[in-house]
């Protein structure tokens, strides 16, 4: 074994250590989130069922800063913008979040987010080391794809947090999913090193696969929003119809954002990434045209990308069609995300096609 090979082995080893370490930190983040939810459940601040059924329109003031002649700025409260939800939607305020407005819960929540960010850095280091050890993009097989996928999911979450979007509610869900993904990757999918066939030597590998991973990560976040929307929506409609949710459902669901916020959130996420997904498929077709001599050949991977695309188009259509908004559209969004997941795991494991070089 020569020197270069030895460095590669070392890097691969470093990568493994970093990935395992990140899993440990994610586990701590997981427990911190649990603590957040537990402490939050002891508070009843601002989330009684009565508050949910209030008929009052939510009025929001948009503060506008106006530069004064003197050079200082004054906050101009007027004109005041009164916003009104669209007709037909419930005027329900967002829940207070996992911490439920408690100091302790919030503290643990912050710790959880910090730990997630730390774990993200460690994991990103692991992915980078892996890429350097194989001297190519870190997505040549399912193991590499999985570790890269979850690191991008966490990155997307952290970016949304940094943009001050209301996404802290998904922390626990996200960390759990990442731990699952990494657990499967390190135990079932682990591949020590892998050769790339010449067809993969193309800059389209970078473009096509990286956008595919980004799309998957963002679709995941949209899917999480949709799933929570479905729970929260049935909770709200039960209250609106005079029912009483169970104690656990009450405790957890009342702390989530309002169904309409969750619905809007996941719609925006899915709609925003749909053009990128379209691009991913087209980039794949161009690459296939260069590598295999046909841009579309109904290879299983191509078929499932197409199915995923059509399913998301279905969802977007449903949103534009009066009778299909809300829950029905949400089910379509979940089906579409399911197609994406199947395209990755299902097709690689159960079906063989030209893409099967990805290796299990």
């Amino acid at each position, binding site marked *: 074994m020569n020197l270069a090979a030895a460095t590669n082995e070392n890097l691969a080893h470093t990568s493994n250590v970093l990935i395992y370490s990140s899993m440990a930190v994610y586990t701590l983040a997981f427990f911190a989130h649990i603590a957040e939810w537990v402490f939050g459940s002891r508070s009843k601040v601002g989330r009684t069922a009565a508050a949910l059924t209030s008929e009052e329109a939510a009025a929001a003031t948009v503060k506008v800063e*106006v530069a004064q002649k003197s050079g200082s700025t*004054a906050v101009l*409260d007027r004109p*005041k913008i009164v916003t009104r*939800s669209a*007709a037909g939607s419930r005027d329900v305020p967002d829940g207070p979040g996992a911490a439920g407005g408690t100091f302790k819960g919030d503290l643990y929540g912050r710790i959880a987010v910090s730990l997630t960010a730390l774990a993200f850095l460690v994991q990103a280091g692991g992915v980078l080391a892996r890429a350097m*050890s194989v001297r190519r993009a870190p997505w040549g097989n399912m193991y590499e794809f999985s570790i890269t996928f979850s690191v991008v999911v966490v990155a997307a979450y952290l970016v949304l947090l940094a943009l001050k979007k209301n996404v802290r509610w998904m922390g626990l869900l996200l960390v759990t999913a990442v731990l699952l993904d990494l657990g499967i990757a390190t135990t079932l999918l682990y591949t020590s090193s892998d050769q*790339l066939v010449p067809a993969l030597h193309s800059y389209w590998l970078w473009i096509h696969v990286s956008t595919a991973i980004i799309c998957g990560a963002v679709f995941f976040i949209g899917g999480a929003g949709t799933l929570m929307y479905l729970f929260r929506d049935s909770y709200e409609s039960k209250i609106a119809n005079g029912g*009483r949710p169970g104690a656990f459902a009450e405790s957890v669901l009342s702390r989530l954002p309002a169904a309409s916020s969750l619905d809007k959130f996941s719609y925006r996420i899915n709609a925003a990434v749909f053009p990128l997904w379209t691009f991913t498929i087209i980039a794949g077709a161009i690459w296939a045209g260069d590598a295999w001599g*046909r841009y579309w050949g109904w290879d299983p991977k191509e078929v499932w990308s197409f199915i995923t695309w059509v399913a998301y188009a279905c969802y977007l259509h449903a949103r534009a069609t009066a009778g299909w908004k809300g829950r029905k559209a949400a089910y379509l969004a979940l089906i579409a995300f399911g197609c994406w997941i199947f395209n990755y795991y299902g097709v690689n494991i159960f079906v063989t096609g030209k893409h099967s070089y990805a290796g299990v």
Partner: protein
Amino acid sequence: MSNTKSNPPQERERPDEREVRAEQDRETARELGAAGSQLSTAPREETLANLPAMGIVGWVRWFWRQLTSMRVALILLFLLSLGAIPGSLIPQNSVDELKVQTFKGLHTTVTPIYEKLQFFDVYSSVWFSAIYILLFISLIGCIVPRTGTFIGQLRSRAPGAPKRLTRLPAYTTWRTEAEPEDVREAARVMMRKRRYRAHVDGDAVAAEKGYLREAGNLMFHIALIVMLVAFAWGQLFKSEGAKLIVEGDGFSNTITQYDDFKSGSLFDQDSLAPFSFTLDNFVGTYERSGPQIGTPRTYEAHVTYADGAYGKPKKTVIKVNDPLVVDGTKVYLNAHGYAPVVSVKDGRGKEVYKAAVPLLPLDNNVTSSGAIKVLDGYRDKGGKKDQLGFQAFFVPTFAGNGKGTMFSQFPAADMPVLALNGFHGSIGVNSGIAQNVYQLNTSKMKEFKDSKGKQLKQRLLVGETMKLPDGAGSIKFEGIQEWASFQISEQPASGWALTGAIGAIAGLAGSLFIQRRRIWVRAVRGEDGVTVVEMAGLGRSESAKLPEELADLAVTLNAAAPTAPGPDNDPDTDPDPDVVDASSAEPFEGAEK
């Protein structure tokens, strides 16, 4: 978790939440009137209950309306994705016929059912075609009227303000001492400056922006049609063939020269682009160490090609992701392997055969196998005509004697070894049954035996010779050449498909990222003689940006129509003279102050 049984009776009487919401919907629609209409070009939903008055025309019209409705588009889209699934799970003739045959052999019970359902040709099946053809008729039936509506909207102006602006999703109001006409004019100018289409309508200014959203959406759907037509065209007129070429040999683009050829149903032989090329040299180098050992580093075919029958020869290099493009036809480098050069002497010592014999690779390290067939010219010791056949096994890098393996250790020809065993007799080429060039049919042949009576087998290095027993001649491993196989394909209209794809993405981005919205500014003199300004905004969907934008507009307009002091201006807050002064720094001409 639910406890429906304990619901108090009065709660049961509450109307269902859905009904309440639907009622609210209708109420708001009535209030908004024309103001909310035409904010998109989406067709109105019709209920299935609207059955037509009888008569063929009525039915056709009804059917057409159903087909072009959003609901049916939704259903067809869903069916399209559902219909694509079997094709990904069951082997397809269009992808791999061999796999289909294997599958049919293994699953004899379901095969007839699958065949009936065309499950081996899903993407050209009657039912799959029906779905997408219906979808595209629906699409066209949808685009045409929507384009008409959209052009109409572009020509007309934003609808006038609804009666009660307070009902809109974003609303603001203040009182000012400016004249109502001046406020309206200022508002109109401001909206125009922000590239709104604005006009004064009665006591209010109506403004609208974001038409590009609709344009993008229409462009996206039209681009889908372009893509489909291009794809269909490509499928009908395409041609695709494979050719294996040994270094030094050439190819000219006529059907007879292909090893294997497929084409679309409307393809015409005469349309093959007239070009030719020669494989000068194949260069492959491979990673020698590290985890990627054996991975190709350079992998390229150096060729000389001529465009047209009398074209000037040009040199170029074909790589895996980098095909040669001549006259719309693409030549892809598909695979590569070795062709050992062997010569055969017959019983009289005369060289009767010398050729480079391409062998097929079996693994990543190019362990290869194939057959050497000497058909004519061979005579045995007694001068009798015969045919010779050899089963050949080749490794570019031999593990070494006694290592117990005849598998190659590395893809480059570091230590090439050719292993042969020989037969004589009838190869059977004349029997009329097509023969695989890489396999030897030994049913009518006899093995050559060694001195111990076992099958004659020998491993040869370059330059070595294997003697056939009883003076039957000899075979010599002269050297090695490499071969490359090419896929030569022509798929017309792929440029159109790409154009459609780019148009689709651009249209989609416009359609999803641009908000279409309307703003109304009403200014009327109140009972006390002070002007009341009301502003309200309406978007396609609720958006956090709309209130922000309205606030921004309101502040700008407020500078021109400053808030009038007065206790009843805003009951919630004390008027703050400082702030008012600040915003009225540039008094509007018509201000009464």
